[in-house]
């Protein structure tokens, strides 16, 4: 694996926001490589810019300066429309609050990203069923999010994230809203995705137990990254 180029390459990334006429420098000259198949945990105090960095890597926000390459593509040079298409193909999203569509069943929620592909209805069904079986929710596919527990909803969200077989998975505090048991289920599931299916996961978390699952932990503080490589996995 050592010779393979990193799947994510970030160079001299800067990002600031305006609040009124005040400039807030959120990310300051960040450089980072993430290898294919890596499980990276991003930690840091609240407001340190973790979500902002994750959003930039996932192509849902624009950088001020710097380069982000994902799978060899410089996403900072893509237009809004190109970026949307790129996300549909290359990024799986897992959010703190699951972000499922409440009027759609688990099956339909997982199917959503596939509607943007050219797959036939039958092919879509196969993909959705596979994704739901990976997260162990085959028996709940006709349930609406409101009929599922938090942990189950997050597993549906994970199925939605992996159904298109994206290049990277990004997770923003995926266990932040879950009880300890459900959080463990979700973390074990994510670890399985990395180990068994070779996925690359970039996860923002506050939870030390979550971070322990990761191969690499990075700390973000005041817009600057510090490496804390974890050795005991």
């Amino acid at each position, binding site marked *: 694996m050592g010779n393979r180029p990193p799947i994510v390459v970030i160079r001299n990334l800067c990002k600031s926001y305006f609040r009124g006429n005040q400039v807030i420098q959120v990310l300051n000259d960040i450089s980072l490589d993430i290898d294919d198949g890596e499980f990276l945990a991003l930690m840091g105090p609240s407001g340190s810019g973790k979500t902002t960095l994750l959003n930039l890597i996932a192509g849902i*926000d624009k950088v001020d300066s710097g380069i982000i390459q994902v799978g060899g593509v410089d996403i900072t040079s893509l237009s809004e429309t190109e970026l949307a298409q790129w996300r549909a193909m290359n990024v799986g999203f897992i959010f703190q609050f699951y972000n499922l569509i409440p*009027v759609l069943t688990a099956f339909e929620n997982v199917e959503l990203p596939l509607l943007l592909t050219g797959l036939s209805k039958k092919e879509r069904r196969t993909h959705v069923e596979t994704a739901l079986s990976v997260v162990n929710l085959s028996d709940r596919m006709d349930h609406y999010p409101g009929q599922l527990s938090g942990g189950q909803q997050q597993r549906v969200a994970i199925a939605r994230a992996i159904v298109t077989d994206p290049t990277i998975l990004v997770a923003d505090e995926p266990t932040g809203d879950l009880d300890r048991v459900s959080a463990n289920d979700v973390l074990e599931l994510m670890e399985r995705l990395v180990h068994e299916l070779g996925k690359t996961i970039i996860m923002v978390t506050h939870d030390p137990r979550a971070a322990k699952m990761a191969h690499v932990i990075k700390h973000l503080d005041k817009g600057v990254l510090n490496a804390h490589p974890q050795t005991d996995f």
Partner: protein
Amino acid sequence: MHILKLIFKNAFRHKLRTFLTILGVAIAILAFGLLRTVISTWYLGVEASSASRLVTRNAISLVFPLPLSYKEKIRQVEGVKEVSYGSWFGGIYIDEKHFFANYAVEPETYLKIYPEIIIPPDQKSVFFRDRKSAVAGRKLAERYGWKIGDIITLKGTIYSGNWDFVLRGIYRGRDENVDETAFVFHWEYLNESLKKTSPLRADQVGWYMIEVTNPNIAAEAAVKIDRMFKNSLAETLTETEKAFTLGFISMTEAIVIAIQLVSFLIIFIIMAVVANTMSMTARERIGEYAIFKTLGFGGFHITGLIFGESLVITMVGAALGIFLTFPAAKIFGKELSTYFPVFIVEPETIYMDIGAALVVACVAALFPAWRAVNIRIADGLRRIG
């Protein structure tokens, strides 16, 4: 799963709000439809008028009469097939509130020129023979429960005194747009009385009705007739029946314009109501639209979702409103038959209903869609939780 299903599910997510909006649209479309029907009814006489009929009246004004002697002269004009004449009577039945059109005509020629007025043959022959008789439209007879043989008394306004008529016939219209609320009697009866009471007013008619052999020569015949009476004591103005009827309507144009304005105002108000519903909905779902965008759905899809939802709500309401328009128009027409002898919902009115609903749906979706498309994903996602 289809996007259409999602649109429907979204539309009925907030049941009470959707229900109230649909109800509002239904009522607005119903009111709009009824007002449009009032307007089209106003112009129905114009539609019902024939292109091969002319009306000749005094050039100065409709209230001035023409000599009876013109009849034979008009008949001589090339292209004229039949000539009849009439006088507005303006009699009052019981009191002013019970208004209906009543006028004196020469029955035989009148019914020849107006084949759309249909009287059963037996009644017709009695009507022709009995000079003191009259015929009434089906709806008018129904309104007052008149039967053949009843004596009907009208109080004269233009011609003083109480006038008794025997109802000898009840006519119906050949087409839907024929006025079935008129009361028609013998011009001879009126004229004979005038000869006794006010001879100066005798042998005068209010207007001539002329049928030409071919609509193409109608204009030409009109010019010929008017030229013939140029420089005579009573100069004439001859126009097609359509122009004649339009002349009547122009007197009431202000009312029609007011009704038009109100009808569009209703659409404008309901537009604001639907727009409010849609922007509340879109504001609540801004996070969801951000999720769709995160997953790679474009502005086109988001716009589709919002426009689709607006269309579903508006069109369900419009369908309900249109559905209710027909029975409502029936009741409306019955209650107000004094003012609107014919009250039918025209296909054009339904097209306008649908058009108005489409405009409402699109305008209402415009701003919410614009906002949902343009909000930055990261900001939209922050609204969740």
